[in-house]
């Protein structure tokens, strides 16, 4: 299900060098659990985002393995250390092989 998937990220545009900042991410995705049945009683196949990563200038901040128990439109809030100006890269991996990416630049100030 690669349609209608939209990542959203809230990250500060500026930070002090070495500061820890709060990052919030949300991606629109139905996260079909593989537990539900359709009206004919057939199990609806699992289709979820199974991994989320956030890196800054090539160094990892957080790497999350997701199971079907993560809610629709997976949301994560976490903290990142900003050592210098650069780019924060966000990546979501779908069961269907799709990869969704977005990035935010952070300045030091």
């Amino acid at each position, binding site marked *: 299900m690669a349609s209608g998937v939209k990542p959203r990220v809230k990250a500060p545009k500026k930070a002090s060098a070495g500061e*820890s*900042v*709060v990052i919030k991410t949300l991606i629109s995705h139905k996260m079909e*659990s593989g*537990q*539900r*049945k359709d009206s004919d009683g057939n199990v*609806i196949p699992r289709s979820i985002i199974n991994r989320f990563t956030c*890196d*800054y200038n090539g*160094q*990892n*901040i*957080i*790497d*999350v*393995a*997701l*199971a*079907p*128990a*993560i*809610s*629709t439109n*997976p*949301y*994560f*809030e*976490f*903290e*990142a*250390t900003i*050592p210098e100006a650069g780019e924060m890269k966000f990546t979501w991996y779908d069961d269907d092989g799709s990869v969704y990416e977005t990035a935010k630049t952070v300045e030091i100030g």
Partner: protein
Amino acid sequence: TLMLPVRGAMAAADDMIAEFTGGASVGDSGITLTTPEIAENGNTVPIEVDAPGAVSILVLASGNPTPDVATFNFGPLAGAQRASTRIRLAGTQDVVAVAKMADGSFVQARNTVKVTIGGCGG
């Protein structure tokens, strides 16, 4: 649709904890698991894990059809070993968080969440 608590799910969760810890003993201090006491909607239950100094944190829902929820692995630029998300709970049950610390030791926290409407059926 009927969504009964799965018998043996707690055992499945215990198996996953044993796999994560390699059977090591698990302490109970140094990790905070924040969950609501009552969740009216099991489809989206906010949780937060916080274990300063952790390398990774495994989160399990012991009463779900499959207990696995998420594993948070913290990299060198993690500002804290803390994360929040929203999870599905099939019914009233214990949510468990187990942290692997940098020194290789393990700690866990366990909270009961009362669920009014389960979040796994359909």
